[in-house]
């Protein structure tokens, strides 16, 4: 009787685990499924208009002009509202458009815009923006949009951002295993750190 009980509990555990594993194991690394959910934002922010190519009507603004924290902190941060207003108070041409009107409503009420998070990692993962930007943009002289794009995709073609990459551990590691030159001029190469504790502190 005892043995039976023990066995059955073990078996149930096993079956549950295997089925769950099976469900997860079939996921390939890059497909359309990598796309994150469509996120509805309080203001539909046009990344394409701000960062897009001039030929396509974009302003070609550097990512780091607004996401100024990315090079200085582990989080890229959403710019403070004052940053938007700083420019937009001088751009009369779009002042009366619905999105900008809404923006000024928040500003006048001194209320933060309740943006939704588009790229989220589990709480046990610590991703550091600063390290990546310092390495790719400042040491290797890679264009900013390319460096950001490794993880965020081609944001300059989007309106509101949507997750483009799986951001799973295997995906991170696949890049960390590749050799990169140490800096823009060096022939020495290295790869990203692959110690567990780099991300799981």
């Amino acid at each position: 009787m005892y043995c039976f009980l023990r066995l059955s509990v073990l078996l149930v555990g096993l079956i549950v685990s295997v089925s769950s594993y099976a469900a997860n194991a079939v996921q390939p690394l890059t497909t359309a499924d990598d796309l994150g959910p469509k996120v509805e934002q309080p203001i539909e922010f046009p990344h394409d208009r701000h960062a897009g190519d001039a030929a396509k009507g974009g302003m070609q603004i550097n990512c780091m002009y607004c996401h100024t924290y990315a090079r200085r902190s582990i989080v890229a941060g959403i710019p403070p509202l004052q940053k938007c207003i700083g420019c937009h108070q001088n751009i009369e041409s779009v002042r009366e458009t619905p999105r900008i009107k809404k923006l000024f409503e928040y500003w006048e009420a001194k209320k933060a815009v309740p943006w939704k998070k588009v790229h989220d990692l589990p709480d046990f993962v610590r991703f550091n923006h600063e390290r990546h930007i310092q390495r790719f943009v400042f040491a290797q002289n890679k264009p900013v949009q390319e460096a950001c794009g490794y993880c965020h995709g081609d944001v300059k073609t989007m309106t509101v951002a949507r997750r483009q990459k799986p951001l799973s551990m295997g995906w991170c590691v696949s890049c960390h295993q590749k050799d990169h030159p140490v800096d823009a001029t060096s022939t020495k190469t290295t790869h990203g750190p692959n110690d567990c504790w780099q991300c799981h502190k």
Partner: protein
Amino acid sequence: MIENSFNRRDFLKVLGWGGATVALSGCGNTSVEDGREFVTSYVQTADYIIPSIGTYFNSTCAQCDAGCGIMGRVREGRVLKLEGNPKSPTSVGKMCGLGQAGVQAHYNPDRIREPLLRNGDKGEAITWEKALALINEKIGGVKAENIAFLTGGVSGHVKVLLKNYLDALGSGHHYVYEAVAPSIMRAANKKAYGVEMPRLRLDKAKVILSFGADFLGAWVSPVHFSQQYARFRKADNGKRGVLVQVESKMTLTGANADRWLAIRPGTEGILALGLINALSTAGLSVSGDVVAVVKEYTTDRVSKDTGVSAEHIAKLAALLKERSPSLIIAGSAAEGYAHGSQNAAAIALLNQVLGNVGKTVEGSSGIPFPQMAPTTGNRQALQALNDNMAQDKVKVLFSYGSNPVFTAPASMKLKENLKKVPFKVAFAHYMDETAVEADLVLPLNSALEDWGTVMPEYVADGAQLSIRQPLMEKLHPGTLGMGDILLALLKQRRPNEYKGYEDFYSYLRNAMVSNKGALGGADADDNTFWDAALSHGMVKLAGSPVNISSHVSVNGLVVPAPFAEDSAYPLHLIPAVSASLRDGRNANEPWLQESPDPLTTIVWDSWVEMHPKTAAKLGIVEGDIVEVASKSGAIKAQVYVFTGIHPDVISVPLGYGHEAMGRYAKGVGVNAFKILDPIFDKETGELAMHETRVKVSKAGQRVIIVKDEGPAGGQQMGRKIAVRMSSDKVNLSKEV
């Protein structure tokens, strides 16, 4: 059946598989919140604010009256961690565990969030307008002399506003009460040295003889003293100072001493006089009138009276003679008796004879703004209020910063007398024992979200005004700062004078900026001065030094003979002031309950400390629940058998045993304040905290004490830890 057969190993196996499923589903991004979680940005922010990187702001600790300078790490608008302010002469970048718990006072779930008006047994939430109007109405209905304000120690601009408010009401009844305060020492110091709180230079002393002053744990300004102590131990000249601690119950400081001497309770003064006699016999020049008084205190007699061996007395005298300057400190253990003032005087006399006054006991600094100087409190003030309440002379009572219903001995019958006051207003953070009795409870901002200035009683260096500034936005919109409330109340009385100030912040800024000349900002423009003051967390004041005198007179210095035995109440009760809980005002901060007592390692409960000999005599072992009964009441708690206590003494820590206050404090341990006998120091009228005699009897139960300590000689990871050694095996003869 399953419990028996389904053992831990099987369970782990199953959990292993189950765990694997959980981990795998983790890979499938089930724990991420794409598109669901908000990522809120600032509306406006300063350039130096970077998300995820802490910014430090200076302020002043409010956890005890030492008023250390602190800085708080603030991230994304939340205060996360406190550190000492390196620029503060009191804390020099350090702080204590009690101070660290300040964030738990701030984020505490039991904080009161809106004004509450009594409705039967319940408190009903009302608006601030209504609360303030109600106060106005109640005050209008009584005579000024029937209005009383009870506070803990206050200083700075809140004190100024409080005084102005009382003046505006025409009431002179400001009672200041501190439950655990060195009141007897203050009086004795005033008499001996001319100042209440001389500077003690531990760092300059070569020997410190402390009579029960727990200066590393809970006494006066422990963070500051700890740093001086470090320099005393590792002096610039390479000579390590020697600390001898004489007390009946070991304190944290006693545990750090080179020599810990257990003394029969109350005989500290006798030992001090005996040491003077031994010093003069050994050739130290002592004036004739002093010799005349002390000559009868021969080493033999002193040894018999105090229980300290003649050998130790001789060694101590030789040490004090050889190494000068020394420093003799009278702590709460020496003053806690009906003859506490005499004990303190005898100890001051020893300092004088040794020539320490002016060397290790220095004068303090005069305070340029006496209206902001700290008002220190004592129990007599509470007694006066209590008497007035008993005679129905108090119609409206305000209470702020003290919790007398918890700390007053039961014999005062304070709770009963409080019921006679028709309208009681409590300014409070928690529904503590006093707030529960109130008719109107006004919720205060936490110290980490409030404005204020503090002038600590013990300042390390010169005079200073410490600034308390908000480290973050208020957590609860319904709370207010004490300064704001007083300002609102003053606007009711003196609208013309105060209507220009929108809030306490504008009052404070204006008051400081308009006096910037005296606050060290004569050359700066207003904004520069104010910003610098906030950034430093304090302003230095130019105080004239107060000279110290030394005229302990031996006239009338009589130290009574040791206590006679009392067969009905054979033991002395020492209510211990612990470094974490002190008088119990912070008991609702779980870190403090959880951090083990430094000596016994006990957590989350009260205990009765007892010498093994006494325990053996009573047939008690560790964990026995005993009843400790004094003439004034009885409490029950677990016994902890401990050699660091005199066999005639038992000790129970203070601060436990709350009946209200919050989820972490309520019902944890027992309240030792309640059973203290009403015996008072003869000179100052202060409660003699150590005078209570008790009897101990087994209550029948036995528990396993929850503590960190393992068995003696215990092992950790195969290595011996904290090896115990009995004190007679320690050879300190080279030091002493």
